[in-house]
């Protein structure tokens, strides 16, 4: 009989808990910020917020999100503009661009020139500007059966891997998820003039960079990775960098606003403020000195892409280029 009473109380307690949970959502001040220690300094600014709260929504990639750079930028940006809540959806590059094309985000930050150019030329994106870069590295087992170390450049390296793999001496692991890294890898294969698709030595994980590295490490395989993720895992895996530095390995980060003429609901002004911050001296310094796990993950390049051997008229045209647009925006303060 005692057990019955206990059961009765427990059941009532659990039901009360359920009802409480259903109700508590209505007692929250705002639907977000349920974290007890909100990360940005916005809460402590008791200065009367001049405008109503805006939620800025960025569509970006999982690899950029994983670096933690956006969290650092958010903190600094929100302390300057407390009425803006910076949020982002981190998905694959293809999906991020799709989200932008559908008007479900205010701006897109990606690192795939071809897709971004199409995004802009089709009228979905405006005022795109490259603000940072890092690079990819070709990783492989220390024994290097394909002799990638001797290759002069990315194309030769990929050709060497293909030949060795066809002879059964090497394996390649690909992300296979249409991410920025994956698309760059596909570009390099096609530049090398070979087709790995469907081969038994070509393994597509369909997953993020971390898991792909794990798989490649387990298989003692070659793989293409962004330098930041590699640096984060360097001590946990046996793979080493066998080829780097080729301009083909450059990974350029660009921020593009979603066209307000196509989607009037986007927060155009706030997006402009955000991107201006990215290319401002303060923002560039923040990005250039950002480290994770002791390693510097990004280099800045606002206004000096040409240094890397890339001339993009969209950005650098004297009259209509975006670099000029943002410089004027910044000087107006």
């Amino acid at each position: 009989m005692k057990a019955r009473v206990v059961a009765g109380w427990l059941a009532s307690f659990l039901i009360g808990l359920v009802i409480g949970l259903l109700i508590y959502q209505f007692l929250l001040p705002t639907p977000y910020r349920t974290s007890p220690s909100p990360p940005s300094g916005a809460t402590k600014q008791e200065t009367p917020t001049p405008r109503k709260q805006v939620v800025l929504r960025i569509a970006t990639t999982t690899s950029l999100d994983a670096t933690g750079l956006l969290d650092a930028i958010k903190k600094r940006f929100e302390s300057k503009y407390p009425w803006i809540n910076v949020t982002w959806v981190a998905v694959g590059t293809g999906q991020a661009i799709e989200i932008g094309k559908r008007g479900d985000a205010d701006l897109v930050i990606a690192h795939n020139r071809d897709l971004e150019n199409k995004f802009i030329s089709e009228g979905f994106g405006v005022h795109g500007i490259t603000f940072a870069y890092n690079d990819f590295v070709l990783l492989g087992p220390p024994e290097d059966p394909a002799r990638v170390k001797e290759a002069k450049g990315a194309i030769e390296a990929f050709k060497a891997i293909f030949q060795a793999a066809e002879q059964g001496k090497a394996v390649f692991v690909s992300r296979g998820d249409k991410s920025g890294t994956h698309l760059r890898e596909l570009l390099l294969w096609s530049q090398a003039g070979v087709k790995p698709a469907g081969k038994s030595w070509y393994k597509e994980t369909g997953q993020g960079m971390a898991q792909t590295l794990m798989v490649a490490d387990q298989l003692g395989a070659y793989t293409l990775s962004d330098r930041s993720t590699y640096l984060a895992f360097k001590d946990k895996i046996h793979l080493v960098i066998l080829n780097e530095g080729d301009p083909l390995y450059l990974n350029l980060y660009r921020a593009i606003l979603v066209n307000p003429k196509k989607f009037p609901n986007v927060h155009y002004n706030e997006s402009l403020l955000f991107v201006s911050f990215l290319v401002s001296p303060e923002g560039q310094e923040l990005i250039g000195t950002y480290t994770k796990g002791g390693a510097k993950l990004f280099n800045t390049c606002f206004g000096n892409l040409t240094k890397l051997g890339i001339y993009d008229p969209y950005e650098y045209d004297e009259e209509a280029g975006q670099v000029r647009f943002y410089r004027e925006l910044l000087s107006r303060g």
Partner: protein
Amino acid sequence: MDAGELTQITLLSLRVSGTAVFLSSIIGVWLGTYIAISRFKMKKLVVTLIDTFMGTPPVLLGLVLYLFLSRSGPLGFLGILFTPEAMIIAQFLLTLPIVTGLTIPAVESLPREIREYIKSLALPAHYEALLLINEAKINIIGGVLAAFSRAVSEVGAVIIVGGNIRYYTRVLTTAIVYYTNSGEFDTVLWLGLVLTLVYFAINVVILLIRYRVGERSD
């Protein structure tokens, strides 16, 4: 990730799945009972359709709902994409066929005598349904809790329509995806532990309800 964020993520998971299943139960239990007691020409087809939808892949549901809620979609004006509300809608649609589909056999498997007796009382349909729901309540509750388990453990629908935005639309399952992707496996294990505890709690509740309700029957 600190304990505060873990709490926030857990509460959000419970809120999203709890609200969704609460709504789908209110509708699904009645709908299922009505279908069970009715005889109409297309009944077998309807039941088959419900059973089919019970197995909808959450990812597919998420994508279709995303297309509807997107700014470029028919319901874009609502602007609820990437909010917990969208996640609740997704899980509501996911669990509605489950609750309905499990209520139907719960009622249909009642002994013939009690079903006939209730029918012989010649009550209006909603009263007949009420009495039958009372008779079948153990199995119906089991169905509701099965739906809740499904909701709490799915990731495909909520990640697409919610966007897995930190502090806002990140729940236990999507957090597991995020931290797995970024390689922070020990955080993943903590999240997995909490998720398992939630399951355990659900099962304890099922046990208690069966005990309490069953005890009164004989």
